[in-house]
């Protein structure tokens, strides 16, 4: 075990050292005394179609292998090495782009803007993880996501977080994906990519703030495992939803659980659900919970309306993120900036031949879209909140320790803790395997 960790640490170190040595300054330090010449700016060639297909094949292969390693091989070590490969390939080699998380925005924009086309590879990047999650759980998160991989590798001393904290924080990804879809649908911005905390590390370049944020996430991730995945990842909303219906999800035990409780604290993500004691499910408790369930269920439409109303009201604020709205408001509020030759946005607009009337009209249309979108976004958030509140009063029978299908990343750590062996033949009782 120790030797394994040494090897892993050494490998990661070497990768970073290699990248560091090969990282060039984009703008070499000028030597004013020696006739330094400014290098010509070059634009990198787009990736060829063949290589894009290759990326899809790699993604499919990694997820297929991860699924096999989790469900058949039950090998945590295999999943670990596969995630290292993902980190190197999709992270450092492909610079974290394209990734299924960001593809949400491409798909959304393609749906709302007829002039925007996405390639089949982008669509596959978006769909494949969801399809796998629908059948096998979040195996994408286990080993095929570079953002998950880099966080997973730094999990050192995870602490357990109370369930109410986790449940409260789990509302954030819904806000994030809602905003990301609204912004993408209105052609405002791809905020998931813009605020990807790890892309700067993958590229060993980027704004200091974003690189700092990525490092902060990694430091935090040593103790609060996979913070980005658990608190922010917008794709986790879709993956969790799909995984909820998966038939062949990872299991802690290969056969019947013996309730030894050894696995209870094995998950660094607190994604293992403990059995519900029958003593808890008393008749009065069940009745009380049912009553609350119904009350909160009746309140769901109220939440939907309130959310829609509130967010649609905030459409003025939200739409300011759109460059056209921002520019038009800037020129209305400060018309003297037309003369500011250093404001490139304004100068580009003035040189475009577009009139102020056109700009304001377009901005008004965009703002109107935000108002409509605000209703949908707010309504969705209200619905999610309403359902989450209702779920707090659901008391299902549960007698085994099982992974939470929506929250489990299928990393396989819990499997290592289970002393139960494979069930063979028609023997009904599990065989306790010898743990090393």
């Amino acid at each position, binding site marked *: 075990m120790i030797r394994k960790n040494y090897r892993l640490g050494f490998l990661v170190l070497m990768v970073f050292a290699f990248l560091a040595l090969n990282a060039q300054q984009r703008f070499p330090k*000028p030597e004013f005394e020696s006739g330094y010449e400014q290098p010509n700016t070059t634009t990198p060639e787009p990736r060829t179609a063949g290589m894009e297909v290759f990326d899809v094949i790699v993604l499919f292969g990694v997820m297929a292998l991860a699924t096999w390693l989790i469900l058949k091989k039950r090998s945590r070590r295999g999943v670990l090495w596969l995630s290292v490969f993902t980190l190197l390939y999709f992270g450092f080699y492909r610079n974290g782009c394209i990734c299924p998380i960001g593809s949400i925005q491409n798909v959304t924009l393609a749906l709302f803007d007829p002039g925007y086309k996405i390639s089949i590879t982008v669509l596959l990047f978006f769909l494949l993880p969801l399809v796998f999650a629908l059948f096998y759980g979040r195996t994408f998160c286990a080993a095929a996501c570079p953002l998950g991989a880099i966080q997973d590798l730094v999990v050192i*001393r995870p602490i357990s977080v109370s369930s109410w904290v986790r449940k409260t924080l789990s*509302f954030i990804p819904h806000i994030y994906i809602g905003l990301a879809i609204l912004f993408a649908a209105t052609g405002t911005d791809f905020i998931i990519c813009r605020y990807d905390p790890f892309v700067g590390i993958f590229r060993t370049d980027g704004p200091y703030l974003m690189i700092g944020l990525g*490092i902060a996430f990694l430091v935090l991730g040593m103790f609060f495992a996979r913070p980005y995945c658990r608190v922010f990842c917008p794709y986790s909303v879709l993956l969790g939803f799909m995984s909820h219906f998966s038939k062949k999800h990872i299991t802690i035990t290969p056969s019947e659980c013996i309730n030894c409780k050894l696995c209870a604290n094995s998950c660094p993500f607190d994604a293992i659900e*403990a059995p519900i004691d029958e003593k808890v499910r008393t008749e009065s408790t069940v009745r009380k919970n049912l009553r609350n369930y119904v009350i909160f269920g009746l309140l769901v439409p109220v939440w939907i309306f309130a959310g829609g109303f509130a967010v649609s009201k905030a459409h003025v604020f939200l739409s300011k993120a759109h460059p056209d709205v921002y520019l038009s408001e800037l020129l*209305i509020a400060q018309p003297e900036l037309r003369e500011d030759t250093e404001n490139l946005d304004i100068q580009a607009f003035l040189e475009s031949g*577009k009139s102020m009337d056109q700009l304001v009209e377009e901005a008004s249309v965009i703002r109107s879209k935000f108002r409509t979108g605000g209703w949908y976004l707010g309504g969705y958030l209200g619905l999610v909140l309403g359902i989450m509140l209702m779920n707090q009063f659901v008391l299902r029978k549960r007698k085994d320790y099982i992974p939470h299908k929506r929250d489990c990343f299928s990393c396989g750590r819990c499997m290592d803790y289970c002393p139960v062996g494979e069930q063979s033949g028609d023997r009904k009782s599990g065989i306790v395997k010898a743990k090393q």
Partner: protein
Amino acid sequence: MQISGIFTLVVAALLLINFVQLKKYEPLESQTLNTLVAQLEEDPRNEQLKEEIRDFDMMVRKAYFTSTWQVRTGALLMLIGGVLFAGSLKVYTDLRRRIGVPDTAKEDFLKARMTAWKWLLATGILVLGMAFFAAFSSTNYLENYYPEAIAGTGPSTMDETIEVIEIVDPADTSASGALAGAIQDTATGEPGQDTGADDSAQAGDGQTTAAQQAVPVEKIHGLAEFKKHHNSFRGPMALGVSYHKNIPTSWDGGAGTNVAWKVAISKPGYNSPVIWGDKLFLAGADEEARIVSCYDRHSGQLLWEKKADNIPGSPSTMPKVTDDTGLSAPTAVVDGYRVYAIFATGDVIAFDFEGNRVWARNLGVPQNHYGHSSSLLVWNGKVIVQYDTGKSGRMLALDTKTGASVWDISRDNHISWASPILVDYAGKIQVVTNTDPTVGGYDVETGEEIWKVDVMMGEVGPSCAYADGLVYANNEYASLVAINPEPGAAVQWESYDYLSEAASPVAYNGLLYLATSYGVLVCYDAKAGEQVWEMDFGTTLYSSPMVVDGKLYIMGNDGVMHIVKADRSGTLIGEPVLGEPSYAIPAFAGGKIYIRGSESLYCIGE
């Protein structure tokens, strides 16, 4: 592990320091460099300065790129240190890992659920609250868009930005063609002379003849009529001379001695009161609003107060101005029909005497680091605007009825805070301005340059003075000059001993009076330029001196009025106290003085 951790922390700290330094070394933000470049603009042939700029520029850039390199290298080192630390920590924790034990500390399931729904509820309410806050704290600027104001892609023309509202007086709304003709007729009268028209038609007594109602005519008032009032900054034609008599020489504002009335001013401003007939006008502005106020000058009663708002092209946020200039430094002007005011936003607005808005337009927010302060003038149906900003030198004349540009000229001079004056010379009325570097005269009817002398420098604040065929101009750190205002103009005499920073000189009866900001009032022989006397008041003098009734009145910033005989004797008549600071120029009418204090408006004289 400890070594890698400390290493990472140290590198992180050094990075942070370096990052701050990097911001400081931003070449384009270097104040020293910008100052040197500004100096070079004033002295473009200074080769030594050029070399100095080159050397400093290289030094700043070197520092910047070195810091950039250090930051990037440091970031990589920190990354490596961080990975090392994480790896070491992982090994350390694995070595200390204990054998797994069955879960003992079990969370109270039902209690956790109860807490969870409460927090979820709180989160939902928080999100709703944030959405509402965002909704109500955001301004929808698109709703403030006036297509006629800023339509088009090129620089907006002034005519597009005028908002004209019909004058309420029905007599003024008919037969614009005939009206224009009438104006044209009257404008051909001798400059500097009143047209002799009866201004009862606009005085509001309602006793207009049938003919006047059929063909309403706005009589153009000249100097003779202006002399009866106090219609502009520094009196008629802005020359610093008032023609009223029996002006008080003693009062005590604090005790109320010889104070007819005193009213609080609603909005601040460094502008001075102007008077026409029974009405006194003031402007004021703060971050919330820009206003023009009209008072009954006999009783001090506020007759109306109107906002200058919803003006096409007007900025929604106020331009940055300094406290000693403010948003309403220029004095309004009045022509017997309307009052015209300009603000630091570039908004020019006209109200009729009843407070009805006649027209308004924005001239483009002036690029002015203190705040726009040039006051308006009015002559022959035109409002004269000196609009020298950091962007360009400019002067324009606006039609008093519509606000449309009659003429609009660009000038090759720098920003100026001085105000124009009107000079009647050789049968022509000139607009004379004081700027860096030009002191010049322009035809009031066309805006054409008649003469100019490049003699001034620095941040020009004082306006010019004129009397007996000579224009006087000065500025602190420059010089005091006397110029003959005609083609081929030249400096007749110059002096460097006393120069004013803000107060404008006044020429009267063969003498020239000049007040320095450090409190010295100096009298020169206007023809010869020789000093006649000087008087040190030991106070700050920003307000300009006014000559009235043979006496010179100059208000100190401390609210003490210094009254001196306007002759060669230099006799101090009195130093009455207002009781509060004052920076404005007093207005005179009907044997009374109207003084704007920092808080109140005073009418002096029983």
